[in-house]
C-alpha cells in the first residue's frame, strides 16, 4: 500500500485542480483499487476522483507495472507506478 501512497502524493502536483482522475492497480485487484480510490480522495483534494476503470477520467494513475495498453500519454513513471493523461477520443 505504501508504494501507492507515495505515487499518489507525487502525482498530486501534476494533476490540475478540478480534473477527473481514476486510480487502478496493475495487475487489477478490486480490493486494493477501492483503497487507492480512498487514498486519492484524501491526497488529491482538488481533483474529482472516479472509480478505478472509469472511462471518463482525464488522468489515470496506475499502481504497479505499466499496463499493456497505454491509457493515454505517459506523464510520469516510477517504480511505484505511472501517471497518464488520457487523450480525448
Amino acid at each position, binding site marked *: 500500500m505504501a508504494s501507492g501512497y507515495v505515487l499518489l502524493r507525487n502525482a498530486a502536483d501534476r494533476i490540475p485542480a478540478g480534473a477527473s482522475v481514476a486510480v487502478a492497480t496493475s495487475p487489477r485487484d478490486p480490493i486494493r483499487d477501492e483503497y487507492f480510490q480512498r*487514498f486519492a480522495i484524501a491526497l488529491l*483534494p482538488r481533483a474529482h476522483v472516479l472509480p478505478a476503470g472509469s472511462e471518463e477520467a482525464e488522468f489515470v494513475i496506475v499502481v504497479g507495472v505499466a499496463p499493456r495498453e497505454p491509457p493515454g500519454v505517459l506523464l510520469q513513471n516510477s517504480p511505484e507506478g505511472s501517471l497518464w493523461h488520457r487523450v480525448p477520443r
Partner: protein
Amino acid sequence: MSGGGVLWLGTLLLLALPGAPLLMHPAFARIPSLARAVLAGAAGAVLVSFTMTVFALLGIPWSLPAILAVAAVLSFLLRRAALGGGVAAAPSARGGWLASALSAVSVSAAFLATAAGSASSPDLIFFWGPKAQRFALSRTVDAAYLGDPSLAYMHAYYPPLVTNLYALASMAAGRMSWTAATLLFPLLLAALAAALPGLLRMGVPAARAAAAAALAVGAIAVIGMEADIAGNGEMPLLLFEATGVGLLLSPLAAAAGGQLLAGLMLAGAVTAKIEGLPLALGAIAVWLWMRRASRPWGAGLRLLGPTLLSLGAWFAFGAARHLFLGYEGEGRFLDFHPEYAGVMFRALARALATTAYGLPYLVPFLCLLAAARRIDASAAIPLGGMAALVAFGVFVYLDRPSDPTPWIAWSAPRVFSPVPMLLALAAARARAAPAPPAPEAARPSRP
C-alpha cells in the same frame, strides 16, 4: 515536518485564546497553572468547534479571525456564568517525580512511534482528514460532500469537533498536514500528562495524583501505539474525557464555575466521538445522583448544557441539510442479536488481551482492586462513566445482524481505550491507609 505542518499545529495553539477569558476567571485561580493552560486550550477548542458548526448551520463562511472572535465572545459570556464559584482548598504541593518521569517516558514512546509512522490511524486518511480538508476548501461543513453516496464510508453523522479543528488548521496552513495530524497523539498525550496531575491534586495528595495520572497516560500511550490512534479522534476524545471526569472529581465541581468547565470538557468528548456521549452521560448521572438530596438542577444544566447545545447545533445542521437526524448504526436500530453474545464476548476478550498482552487494561484494574477497600464514594463517577461506555460498546456490537468478530478485532481496543484512564481516576480516590498505632500508645502507661 514541513513549515506548513508547523503552521498547522501552531494554529491549534490559538485555541487557548478564546478559552482564556473563561479560564482567567478567579473561580479557576487555584487550578495549577499547567492544567489551567491546557484547560484553556480545551475549552477554546469546544467553543471554536461550536462556533464553526453554528456558522455552517447559518450559512456563514468560515474565516479564522471571525471564528476566534465569536468563540472569545462566548467565552466571556460563560465567564459571567462562572461568577461566584471558588475553590475550597488549595491543591496539594507538587510531587511524585518518579510518576512524572514515567509519564515523560510514555509520551516519548508515543512520539517515537508516531514519528516512525507505526501508530498512524488509517481512519485519518479514510475520513477524518479528507472531510477536514474539504471543509477547509469549502469554508464550511460541505453538505454536498457529506451527502455523496460514494462517500458514505466517511460517516456524515460523526460529531464535528475533530474535523472542524483540522479544517481550521488546514485553512490557516493552506493545506491539510497529515504528519501534523498524527503528531497530535503524542502532543495531546503530553498535554494530558501536564494537566491531569494538577487537576487530581486538587482532591487527593500529590503523590497519588501523579501516580494515577502516570498510570492513565502510560495506558493511553500503550493502547494508542498498539491500536494506531495517531491522527484520528481518539486522543482528543481521551483528553476531554480525562479532564472532564478529573474536574468532576475535584472540589471545583462543588461550584458553578467548575460544573460549567466540566460540562465544557465533556461536551468536547461528546463532539469528538460518539463514544464520548455514553461516558459523559454516565459520569454526570452518577455525580448528580450523589448530590440528589440538594436537588442540583442548576448543576445539571451547567454540566449538560454545553453537550446539549453542541450536539443540538450539529444535529440541526444534519436535519437542515437533509443529511441525518441523529447517529446511525450498522443496519436497523434496535435490531438486537443476543445470539452473538458469546461470540462477541470471546472476540472482545481476545481483542483486549492481544493489546500489549492486555496489560494496559489489567494493570489499572489491579491498582483499583488493591485500593478497593479504601475507595471513596466519588470513585463511582469514573466507574459510572466506564459502565455506560462498556454497556454502549456491548450494545453496538450486538445491534447488527452479523457476526461482530472482525469489527471488534479492529475497533474494541480503541472503543474501550478510556477504560484504563477511568480505572486509574477511580483508584486515585482511595483514602490513605490508617496509620498503625504508635508503639507508645499500645503499651500500658507507667504509673
